[in-house]
């Protein structure tokens, strides 16, 4: 009989694994997608995964340091998204396209 406690008893490890999966999905997006904005979104996904780990640790250790970190990460992510989108808009104005196929080689 398989051990079903892994299904019924939720430990912090469950959250961490979920976080890892989320992170790897984000990585996959960064590696595989070609749309600039989807790349940004994948990065946001990775940041979220990290946030999830922070909150999990904060919860299991009973300290709020992790939550403060999440707070900072969120702020920076928002800032990053703002700049990223502004860049994307600039690029779109110039190339009429946000697919990095057209400008993936970092040349002028």
């Amino acid at each position, binding site marked *: 009989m398989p051990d079903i406690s892994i299904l*019924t*008893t*939720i*430990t*912090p*490890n*469950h*959250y961490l*694994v*979920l976080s*890892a*999966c*989320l992170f*790897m*999905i*984000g*990585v*996959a*997006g960064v*590696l*595989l*997608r*070609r*749309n600039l*904005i*989807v790349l940004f*979104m*994948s990065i*946001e*996904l990775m940041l*979220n995964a990290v946030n*999830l780990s922070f*909150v*999990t640790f*904060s*919860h*299991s250790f*009973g300290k*709020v340091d992790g*939550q403060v970190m*999440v*707070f*900072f990460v*969120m*702020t920076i*992510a*928002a*800032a990053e*998204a703002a*700049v990223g*989108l*502004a*860049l994307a*808009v*600039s690029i779109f*104005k*110039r190339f009429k396209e*946000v*697919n990095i*196929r057209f400008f993936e080689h970092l040349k002028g």
Partner: protein
Amino acid sequence: MTADAFLFWFLAALTIVSALSVVLMTNPIYSALSLAMTMVSVAAIFVTLQAYFLAGVQIIVYAGAVMVLFVMVLMLFDLKHELQAFTRGRFSGAFKIASIGSLAGLLVGAMYTANVLTVPEAASVANTTPKGAITPLAEELFLRNVFGFEALGVLLLVIAVGTVALSRSKGGTHARH
């Protein structure tokens, strides 16, 4: 505790499915909406971890502001279906997926071999801090991390200026008026 387990599995499935659809949807607008969904479900997971304030902030900042911006920009671009959503190259694609998979496997494996946090619920800890109390968070943020907080303020100001400057430039990044 089966209710908690059910909630976790439900939210985890929701999160994973919507996260996957972020990556797999070829229409970027669906991706963005899926990401918003992911954000909301992560916020719900925060709630199950008793980080209520963060859950609220997650929804306001990510789902309510950042992702709306993404969606708006995407709709402005009006990209229906992408010509080439994924990178080309069979070999490098296989290599990418292989390394992603192996890293994910390694991470999960590491967690299960580490065996540190398998305590069901840090019950003692959960009782010491009142449920969803914001005061400790505020104290941590404004007393011990006040420098970081102020630095973030400066960062946001810089970002605001930079973004305005960027979006006012006409015709791309190398434009000469």
